[in-house]
C-alpha cells in the first residue's frame, strides 16, 4: 500500500481515468484482432494486452488470458533491468521477448512486445501484448517438441531485444526472426498488429496526460492499485486462517506415462496468502516443466477470477500474495529444462484452485466456491498441405471446449473453456472447414461427461473429424487428464476426462453422398491415440476426441429430480446415469419423474453406502 500518501484525486476523475484505461486496453485488443493474420488471434483471441504505470505496475489487462499478465510484467521489468542502462530505453522503442526463464510467457511460443510511453521526455507508462505464436522454429512445426530434453531444442528464445529502436524497425532482428519460423508472412502481420496496438495505446495515454496531467494519471494508478489491494485483503481476512492442502499429478512426461507430483499448501493468515509448492517432484528432461514466471502466471490465473470479482485486475492483487517453490522442482525449473508443453502448470493451477476453493467453501463467500473445470487445454497441432495446396500449420483449439465446475447453488456452464483463458475462443466449425482441410462429422455435447452432483459440472464436448481434400496431415498431440480427474466439492463426482481415438480406412467420403455418419456409425475398430504423441490422418481416417467435463458439487442423490429429467431431455445425462448415479427413475418415453421409484432407488443407494466400508484411511 502506498504509505503516507494523501489522496488528492477526486472520485469522479478517478472513475473517468479508470474507465479510460480500460478503454485503451480494449482498443488494443481490437487492434490486434482486426489486423492480425493468424487464426490464433482473429478467431481464438489467444493473446493479452496490458498497460503499466510509470512505476511499471500493471494497471489494466486487455483480453482475458489472465495468466499473460504475469508474463507481460516479467518482460517489462527485465527489459528495464537488461537494457535500461545500456543501450538505454528510448521513445519509440518496441522490445520483444519470449524467454520463459525470465522475460516471457509460460513457454517460448508466448511472444511479448512492450513499449515505453514517454510524455514530455519522461516515461509515464508502458504498454504491451503477449501472443501465442503459430511457430517459433525448432524441431517440430508449431513449437511443441515431444522429444526435447533441453530448452535449446525448443525453438528460438529471446531475452528482451529492441525490435524497434527510437521508432525505427531493426531490420537485422526482424529478418533474423522471420528467417527462422515456418510462417513468416502471417506471423509478420501478427507482430505488426502487436506493434500497432502499442503505438495507439501510447497515443491514448499521451492524450490522457494532456487532459489530466501526468501526475493525476499516476495518482489515479496508485489509488486503483491500493483499492484493489485493500479489497482483496478484506476478502482474504474473511477466509478462515489455516493451511489448505492439495496434490495433483501430471500423467505423462512427453515420452512415457508417469505420474509427476505437484503439491500445494496454501496458508491463509490474516490478510495474506502464501502458496508453497514444497513436496513437488524435481524437474525432468522432458518438455512438461514450468518456470518460476510460469508458476506465478498460473497462480494468478486461478486466484484472480476466484477472489477478484468486481475489482480492477491490476498489480494490487500481487501485494498480499507470496508464491514459493523449491528451485529445480518441476514447477520452478532451471535451465536447461525444456518447457514447450508446461502441463505441470495446469496441475499447479488446479492444485492452487483446490486450496483457494476449499478456503472459499469454508467462508462467508462459500457460494463462490467452484469445483474443478475440465483441467487443461489439450493442444493438437497439425501440419501438411491445406485444401488449396498450400503449406498449413493448424493449431486445433477445439480441445478447449470443456465443462466448467459447478458451484454451491448452480450448475457449471456446459461446453465452457478454461479458467486461465476465459475469453479464448474455439473456431466455428464452418470457419474451420473453410480455412483448414477438415471435415467435421460431429461436434456436440458429450452425454454423461458432466461431474454429477446436487449441482452438476458443465458437460464437455465430443468431436469427430477427418482430414479432407488433402493427402495427409500430421499432428502433434498433447493431452492429459486421462487417468486422473479434477477436485470436487462436498462429495460431488469428477467430470469426464479426455480421450482420443482413431478409426482408419472409413468410407465417409462415399457415405457423404447420402448422409453424414456419426463416429458410432463407423464400423472400424477404434485405436487409442497416446496422451502425448504424434499421429497422422490419411484419407478415410477419422479422429475422435472427447473433452473433459466440470466437476460436481454435493451429493448427486440430492439433485432435484425435475432437474435430472431436464438433463436427460437435453441429452446432457443418459437415462441409465439418471437412475444409477442420481437415483432418479424416469419414464423412458415422457421423461416424467416416477417419484415412488426415485425414492426407492435413492434409499437403495443409501443402504449400499452404509453397508460398504473399505475403511483403512489413507
Amino acid at each position, binding site marked *: 500500500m502506498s504509505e503516507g500518501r494523501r489522496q488528492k484525486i477526486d472520485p469522479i476523475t478517478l472513475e473517468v481515468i479508470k474507465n479510460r484505461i480500460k478503454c485503451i486496453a480494449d482498443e488494443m485488443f481490437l487492434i490486434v484482432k482486426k489486423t492480425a493474420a493468424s487464426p490464433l488471434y482473429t478467431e481464438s483471441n489467444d493473446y493479452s494486452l496490458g498497460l503499466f504505470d510509470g512505476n511499471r505496475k500493471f494497471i489494466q489487462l486487455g483480453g482475458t488470458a489472465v495468466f499473460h499478465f504475469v508474463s507481460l510484467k516479467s518482460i517489462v521489468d527485465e527489459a528495464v533491468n537488461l537494457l535500461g542502462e545500456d543501450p538505454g530505453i528510448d521513445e519509440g522503442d518496441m522490445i520483444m521477448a519470449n524467454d520463459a526463464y525470465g522475460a516471457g510467457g509460460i513457454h517460448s511460443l508466448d511472444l511479448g512486445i512492450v513499449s515505453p510511453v514517454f510524455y514530455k521526455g519522461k516515461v509515464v507508462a508502458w504498454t504491451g501484448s503477449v501472443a501465442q505464436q503459430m511457430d517459433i522454429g525448432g524441431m517440430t512445426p508449431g513449437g511443441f517438441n515431444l522429444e526435447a530434453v533441453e530448452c535449446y531444442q525448443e525453438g528460438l528464445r529471446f531475452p528482451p531485444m529492441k525490435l524497434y529502436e527510437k521508432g525505427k524497425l531493426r531490420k537485422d532482428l526482424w529478418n533474423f526472426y522471420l528467417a527462422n519460423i515456418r510462417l513468416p508472412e502471417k506471423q509478420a502481420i501478427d507482430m505488426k498488429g502487436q506493434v500497432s496496438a502499442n503505438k495507439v495505446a501510447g497515443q491514448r495515454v499521451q492524450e490522457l496526460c494532456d487532459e489530466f496531467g501526468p501526475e493525476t494519471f499516476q495518482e489515479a494508478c496508485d489509488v486503483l492499485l491500493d483499492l484493489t489491494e485493500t479489497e482483496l485483503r478484506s476478502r482474504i481476512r474473511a477466509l*478462515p*486462517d*489455516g*493451511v*489448505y*492442502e*492439495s*496434490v495433483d*499429478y501430471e500423467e505423462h512426461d512427453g515420452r512415457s506415462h508417469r*505420474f509427476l507430483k505437484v503439491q500445494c499448501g496454501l*496458508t491463509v*493468515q490474516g490478510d495474506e496468502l502464501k502458496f508453497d509448492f514444497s513436496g513437488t517432484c524435481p524437474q525432468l528432461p522432458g518438455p512438461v516443466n514450468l518456470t518460476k514466471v510460469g508458476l506465478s502466471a498460473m497462480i494468478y490465473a486461478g486466484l484472480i477470477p476466484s477472489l477478484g470479482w468486481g475489482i480492477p485486475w491490476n498489480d494490487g492483487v500481487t501485494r498480499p500474495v507470496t508464491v514459493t517453490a523449491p528451485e529445480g522442482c518441476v514447477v520452478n525449473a532451471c535451465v536447461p529444462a525444456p518447457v514447450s508443453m508446461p502441463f505441470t502448470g495446469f496441475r499447479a493451477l488446479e492444485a492452487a484452485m483446490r486450496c483457494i476453493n*476449499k*478456503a472459499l*467453501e*469454508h*467462508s462467508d463467500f*462459500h457460494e463462490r*466456491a467452484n469445483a474443478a473445470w475440465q483441467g487443461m487445454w489439450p493442444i493438437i497441432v497439425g501440419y501438411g498441405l491445406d485444401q488449396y495446396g498450400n503449406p498449413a500449420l493448424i493449431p486445433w483449439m477445439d480441445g478447449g471446449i470443456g465443462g466448467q465446475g459447478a458451484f*454451491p447453488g448452480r450448475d457449471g456452464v456446459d461446453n465452457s473453456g478454461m479458467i486461465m483463458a476465459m475469453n479464448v475462443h474455439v473456431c466455428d466449425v464452418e470457419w474451420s472447414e473453410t480455412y483448414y482441410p477438415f471435415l467435421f462429422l460431429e461436434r456436440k455435447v458429450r452425454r*454423461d*461427461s458432466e*461431474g*454429477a452432483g446436487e449441482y452438476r459440472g458443465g458437460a464437455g464436448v465430443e468431436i469427430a473429424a477427418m482430414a479432407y481434400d488433402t493427402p495427409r496431415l500430421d499432428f502433434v498431440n498433447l493431452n492429459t487428464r*486421462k*487417468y*486422473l*480427474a*479434477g*477436485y*470436487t*466439492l*462436498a*462429495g*460431488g*463426482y*469428477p*467430470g*469426464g*476426462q479426455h*480421450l482420443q481415438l482413431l478409426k482408419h480406412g472409413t468410407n465417409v467420403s462415399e457415405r457423404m453422398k447420402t448422409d453424414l455418419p456419426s463416429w458410432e456409425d463407423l464400423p472400424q475398430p477404434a485405436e*487409442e491415440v497416446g496422451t502425448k504423441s504424434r499421429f497422422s490422418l490419411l484419407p478415410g481416417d477419422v479422429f475422435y476426441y472427447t473433452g473433459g467435463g466440470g466437476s460436481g*458439487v*454435493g*451429493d*448427486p442423490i440430492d439433485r432435484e429430480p425435475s432437474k435430472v429429467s431436464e438433463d436427460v431431455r437435453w441429452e446432457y445425462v443418459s437415462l441409465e*446415469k439418471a437412475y444409477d*448415479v442420481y437415483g432418479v427413475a424416469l419414464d423412458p418415453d415422457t421423461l416424467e419423474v416416477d417419484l415412488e421409484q426415485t425414492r426407492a432407488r435413492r434409499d437403495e*443407494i*443409501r*443402504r449400499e*453406502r*452404509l453397508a*460398504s*466400508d*473399505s*475403511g*483403512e*484411511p*489413507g
Partner: protein
Amino acid sequence: MDARRVSESLEAVGDPPDRIVRCRKCKHPIGHLTQNWKASSSVIRRVRSLSEARAGIPASDQVEWRQWVCPGCATLLNAEVALKGDPDIWDYRPLGS
C-alpha cells in the same frame, strides 16, 4: 451451539481447541477440526474405481476414487481422486495444529 461452516457438507461446533466436525445435514459427529477427519472412525470411507464415475473411459489400477459417507444419513460428504498409497488430503488444518 454456534455452528461454523467447514464446507458445503460439514460444519464445526464447540469451542477451540476441541471443535467437532459434523455432518451439516443430520449433525452426526464425524471428527475433530484439529485432526484430519477423513481418518476418523466415525466416518465411512469407500474406495471405488474411477470408471464408476466416468463410464466408457479406461481406468488406471494406480488411481482410486475415495468417498466419505456420513454414517448417520448416508450423504456423500467429500471425495477425492488419488494415487494408491497417497495419504488422504487434509483439506483444512487450523494454524498451529
